[in-house]
């Protein structure tokens, strides 16, 4: 199984709980805003600790409250594309892309797939929303991830940019063969990209 997520977490007044077991390909977590979908991604990435439960990805246990397993975020090998690009402002695009990479062996191929070759020497603050999003996807892919987490990867982009990023994601899904967990509130996006859709 790609993703096995059984967690409970109290966040203020609200309580987030999810039981999910998913196979290969791209799994979409689909539901309205504000019900804790991002919190689920943060728990899988190790940025937020569940109160109890178990998280395993591709057979590797990342968190288990019963046995006390809690792998540090830097050792989980999550390729996390956040809702905002979170590019490092003091590093050029090339250095951002290579931040999590051991070397620049995969740079050329990833850059070509995402169409960001002309941006390598730019500063993040000079990028458009769509460009920044593609760089963030490239940075996550180049960190040699064991799985991908995508949080609303197409939100706040205009129509042409959405098409561009969606094509890039379809290529990643089909070429990289990584398990992907994606969060969205857009039914069209869920329909087009998802191998399977989990409504929450």
């Amino acid at each position, binding site marked *: 199984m790609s993703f096995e997520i059984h967690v409970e977490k109290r966040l203020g007044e609200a309580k987030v709980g999810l039981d999910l077991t998913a196979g290969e390909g791209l799994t979409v977590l689909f539901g309205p805003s504000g019900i804790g979908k991002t919190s689920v991604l943060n728990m899988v*990435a*190790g*940025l937020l600790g569940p109160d109890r439960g178990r998280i395993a990805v591709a057979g590797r246990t990342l968190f288990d409250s019963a046995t006390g397993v809690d792998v*540090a*975020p*830097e*050792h*989980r*090998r*999550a*390729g*996390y594309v*956040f809702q*905002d690009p*979170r590019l*490092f*402002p*003091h590093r050029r695009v090339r250095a951002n892309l290579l*931040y*999590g990479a051991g070397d620049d062996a995969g740079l050329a191929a990833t850059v070509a797939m995402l169409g960001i070759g002309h941006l390598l020497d730019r500063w993040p*603050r000079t990028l458009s929303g769509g460009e920044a999003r593609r760089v963030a996807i490239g*940075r*996550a892919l180049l*960190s*040699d991830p064991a799985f991908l987490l995508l949080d609303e990867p197409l939100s706040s982009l205009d129509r042409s940019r959405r098409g561009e990023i969606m094509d890039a994601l379809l290529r990643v899904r089909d070429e990289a063969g990584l398990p992907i967990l994606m969060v969205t509130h857009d039914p069209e996006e869920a329909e087009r990209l998802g191998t399977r859709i989990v409504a929450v």
Partner: protein
Amino acid sequence: MLSPAEWTIVALSLKVGGVAMAAVLPLAFALAWLLARGRFPGKLLLDALVHLPLVVPPVVTGWLLLLAFGPNGPLGSLLERWFGVSVLFRWTGAAIAAAIMALPLMVRAMRLSIEAVDRRLESAARTLGAGPWRVFWTLTLPLSLPGILAGAVLGFARSIGEFGATITFVSNVPGETQTLPLAIYSALQQPGAEATVWRLSAMSVALSLAALLVSELLTRRVRRGLHVL
């Protein structure tokens, strides 16, 4: 222009201010980090203690330093026993007094710049495989560097202006502890030294103004989300 004796005073002030700032920089940064990021009981008390030199009369700070570093004081006796030195009536003592007085200003500026670093960038770095130390060296430190430098410059300016604690702690020894403010004070006691007072005061104002301008420019960079690297 300044006479050779007056240049000596300026040089001594710069030495005392520079050493004080450099010596207290790591401590100021550690305190700023604790206050910006730490969650521990007694944080409010630590915050108040750090700010104490800003509000306590400097003469009290100087007297407390005298007690601590005097021959029978806890720190003074240790220095005497281990290194055979005393900081009383020495420029090193003046630097200690200046460092204590500069500490609160430095911590304030550094704390603000550490708090201004976007934690979401740090969590992104963690997911990219960076452990806490790499996150610190590659993100937190470079992004907060303008504020840290601004704090250091501010601390330096405060150090060369230090008067009350210094004169209480290490007295007013020409060539050893007589920095700009102390020299101006001495000149004011002498009849006919008005010209000296004018020249040294002008020098003081120029140095302070330059430091404040540099500090303000660096702070603006922090506010605009820029960086110096």
